[in-house]
């Protein structure tokens, strides 16, 4: 079983600034995938970004990028040019096999 640690329960960032959310995990798998999901107040779960563990290149989706350190089992999410709509809970989730195991989440507040 995988354990996932998101060490920042709450974070705050000003609009247009950059923020990094941390995630570490423990796995015995060699080939796996990692995901970040966001959950805005509407409670909908939305995929933000995906990273394949065998790829050294960090994934990027518009303002969202990851810093993936496989040896350190670290998978942080960087949000550039933060927008008010980025206010949400953010969950890190490694996946191997059938199930995603979620971290406890980081609550991000973007302020004007």
């Amino acid at each position, binding site marked *: 079983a995988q354990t996932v640690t998101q060490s920042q329960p709450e974070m705050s960032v000003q609009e247009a600034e950059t923020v990094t959310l941390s995630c570490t995990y423990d796995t015995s798998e060699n*080939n*796996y*995938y990692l*995901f970040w*999901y966001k*959950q805005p107040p509407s*409670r*909908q*779960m939305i*995929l933000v970004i*995906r990273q*394949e563990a065998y790829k050294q290149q960090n994934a990027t989706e518009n303002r969202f990028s990851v810093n993936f350190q496989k040896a350190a089992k670290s998978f942080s999410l960087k949000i550039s040019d933060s927008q008010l709509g980025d206010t949400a*809970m953010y*969950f890190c989730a490694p*996946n*191997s*096999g*059938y*199930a*995603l*195991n*979620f971290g*406890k*989440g980081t*609550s991000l507040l973007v302020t004007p």
Partner: protein
Amino acid sequence: DTAVSQTPKYLVTQMGNDKSIKCEQNLGHDTMYWYKQDSKKFLKIMFSYNNKELIINETVPNRFSPKSPDKAHLNLHINSLELGDSAVYFCASNEGGGGNSPLHFGNGTRLTVT
């Protein structure tokens, strides 16, 4: 629209009652899941079905019984509801196997047991 849809969106009921939550996906996915999100927002997997076959059954009271009549549907029936069952329940689906397919979530069912 292609999606994962679950009903009802809200469910308020008394202790001891039996209730069901329905889930349907029209994405053609092979695998469906139930997750429970508690008041602290922690998401924990409960069950997973692949092509109508149960493949994950976490430590969940046997008052919870999933039913998958076909691979597009996964319903959750809960007997003898307790106060601690109050939570948001999410249905999700993906292509399963290999771990590279992201989950597509329904909008959740907020269950309140009084």
